[in-house]
């Protein structure tokens, strides 16, 4: 496949960025999107220029490091995949592909396609856990948990923290990310003990960091590589209101 790439290049956080056009040829349709970028970077290095920086690590769709805004969609045209699991067979020979970093105020650009998502960590630091120390916990089977609740919890826990939900949202809201964590614990007996402190702390931190409001457009759910459901946002809202009233 021969492709034209329009890629956001930005020297560092303070510099002004711009789109630069590149041509790549002879790309295998079986290669992944990031492998296509590897080929481009090899070309750039051969010309003694600086390769395009982008975040990536596991390249099997689970670490959540990669995240590119491809032709106007987080993680590109395929559904339920991360950028590293997007394959070139989803494009056509001769296509022009526009590649940008996540665009959201709480995710400032560090360089080229690399955005700083430390805000997500800060939300978790505020309370995205069950407060137990190592040791001194009951036997694992001491608390039976109905299978359907364990499944709902796991559905929510599948979030990889990539930030596609924020990138997809016109308000750069982090509600789906926060909802996934709140939901995972809210349905489990272990998580109920500090449920109200958790939800209040996480929502307050989310607001403080400048993430926008949720208007239920569902763009986040549509672009989530792990198909985290919007219903978790409903649960987050319920948890939040309950916590505020009680």
């Amino acid at each position, binding site marked *: 496949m021969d492709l034209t790439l329009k890629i956001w290049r930005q020297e560092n956080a303070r510099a002004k960025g711009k789109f630069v056009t590149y041509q790549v040829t002879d*790309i*295998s349709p*079986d*290669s*992944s999107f990031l*492998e296509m970028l*590897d*080929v481009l970077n*090899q070309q750039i*290095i051969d010309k*003694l*220029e*600086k*390769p395009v*920086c982008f975040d*990536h*690590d*596991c*390249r*099997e*769709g*689970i*670490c*959540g*490091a990669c995240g590119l805004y491809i032709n106007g969609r987080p993680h590109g045209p395929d559904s339920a995949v991360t950028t590293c*699991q997007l*394959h070139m*067979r989803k494009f056509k020979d001769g296509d022009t592909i526009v590649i940008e970093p996540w665009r959201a105020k709480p995710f400032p650009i*560090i*360089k080229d396609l*690399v955005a*700083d*998502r*430390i805000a997500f*960590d800060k939300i*978790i*630091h505020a*309370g*995205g*856990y*069950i407060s*137990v120390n*190592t*040791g001194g*916990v009951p036997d*694992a*089977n001491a608390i039976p*948990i*109905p*299978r359907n609740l*364990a499944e709902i*919890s*796991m559905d929510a*826990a*599948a979030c*990889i*923290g990539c930030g596609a939900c924020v990138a997809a949202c016109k308000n750069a809201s982090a509600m789906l990310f926060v909802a996934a964590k709140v939901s995972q614990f809210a349905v*489990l007996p*272990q*998580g109920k003990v500090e449920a109200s402190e958790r939800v209040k702390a996480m929502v307050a931190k989310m607001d403080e960091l400048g993430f926008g409001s949720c208007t239920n457009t569902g763009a986040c759910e549509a672009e989530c590589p792990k198909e985290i459901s919007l219903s978790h946002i409903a649960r987050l809202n319920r948890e939040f209101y309950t916590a505020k009233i009680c």
Partner: protein
Amino acid sequence: MATLNSKIPDGPLAEKWTNYKAIQKLVNPANKRKLDIIVVGTGLAGASAAASLGELGFNVKAFCYQDSPRRAHSIAAQGGINAAKNYQNDGDSVYRLFYDTIKGGDYRSREANVYRLAEVSNNIIDQCVAQGVPFAREYGGLLDNRSFGGAQVSRTFYARGQTGQQLLLGAYGALSRQIHKGTVKIFTRNEMLDVVLVDGKARGIITRNLISGEIERHAAHAVVIASGGYGNAFFLSTNAMGSNGSAAWQIYKKGSFFANPAFVQIHPTCIPVHGSFQSKLTLMSESLRNDGRIWVPKKQEDAEAIRAGKLKPTDIPEEARDYYLERRYPAFGNLVPRDVASRAAKERCDAGFGVGTGLAVYLDFTDAIQRLGKEVVEARYGNLFQMYEKIVDENPYETPMMIYPAIHYTMGGTWVDYELMTSVPGLYSIGESNFSDHGANRLGASALMQGLADGYFVLPYTIQNYLADEIRTPKISTDLPEFTEAVKNVQDRLYRLMNIKGKQSVDSFHKKFGLLLWDLVGMSRNKEGLQKALKNFKLLKEEFWKDIRIPGEPEEMNPELEKASRVADFIEIGELMARDALNREESCGGHFREEFQTEEGEALRNDKDFMYVAAWEYKGPDKDPVLHKELLKYENIEVKQRNYK
């Protein structure tokens, strides 16, 4: 000169750990606050250790090269975590888990360490459930288990095909809680480039800030390395792109012995290589072998027709299929340990029965779908099937998966004693980065167990035995001349790399080296090949330092420089792997020497001459490393030829 003292406590095996904890030195809460600990790496071992040490009251600094501790490669572990809970009433016990792990490791690991691992395995499951890890459950609400290779009981706990992710997020949650409390300070996008010793003790590290390129100094009373394995030396592996062996290699150069480097694990069920542009290999969980059946055609002409695209796997009738694992190993069948399954696949492909490109075998779910129904198979493996389809563009519900072995894990690593301390005082190594528990072959679902055992339940105890004697040591200053010298060495090395200005990119060089490593020090090895490897790696090292090209500057985000520094270390690690493999004139676990096999082609150990841990001591850039032997004694287990038939 350092000597090997494994510090195994006295007493009967089952009482060693209890006895150790009863008499070890502890640090009181007021003194804990005065002591600083550095933890490098935030995977299962690093995150759980940092969190637990923070909870105890120590001042912890945790480092990772990723943008968040949650992205460490433990996250990619799919299948599960072992524990001796015996919830299934199928005869499991601490002793049996210990026994299976020693046997699975082909009698090349330490009894006392492995027994302790089996002992604390149950605490891990309790801990994770308390943290809200959503393990799979039965309809009655209790925890579900599945079986894994090398065991005849079901002791593997799992969270769909994302067990590693869920356990890591549990540990990351515990770590985040300590960060919030201020006991742990986190440094992301920060890579350790050297360890600093003061008066022979580990007192800090030098790191590079991967955003600004700045070189930073960090001091502490003890340093813990939890940086994972060196499997990426091969370029193509199931490791994450950034996984590297550099922290372990830097401490080797500062006096920590490196043990059993030749013991690397080749995982039998990975998606086969399909092109030269490929950047990594994807693992398909071993749990698939619970229900999938592995086969190749019985007739060579059928295999040829499949490779030529003239026949489809579904065209091959049942009687023309060779379920070679079930044929060779009727007792364990498709659930033989990983090394055995990998070699059997290679044997069939080398003999001309491979499918796909010729380097692939089938993993077939037709029987399982007929027996259990598509829904059950989907519930068990749905996300794995989906992942396979996204990558390969074939539907595994309709046509068998194709798989082939790939580098996955390194059993070898930094030598540590019973306390997980390396041969340098105050320097610890935990998780995959040490050599400790898996011998010559790791069983499935045991990596997660070991990482969390080390981090939650072992290190937080043993490190106090050392720190108790450090309570009078004031804060370590980063202005000490040892720090200044280490910074200079790191900077010199980076500038030297930048100034080569050669012609080859880091990736193209790494691919070339990795292929050679795979051919000569991979799934099967021989004397001639290993000697050739040693000679070639030396030449490649010279070529690397003359011809590598790194664009950009060192004082900026520069992934090419990061990779170059890691690859420079990988070449040297590869050299030590070859040296160790050459020295070990036997076949055991993941180390297969063609000269040493039974008539049936099984690995042939030589217990008389090689029942030892090979610990290598660095002697300088142009000198051969020195081999130290830690003899292994088996007092509680009968040493046998492994038999899975």
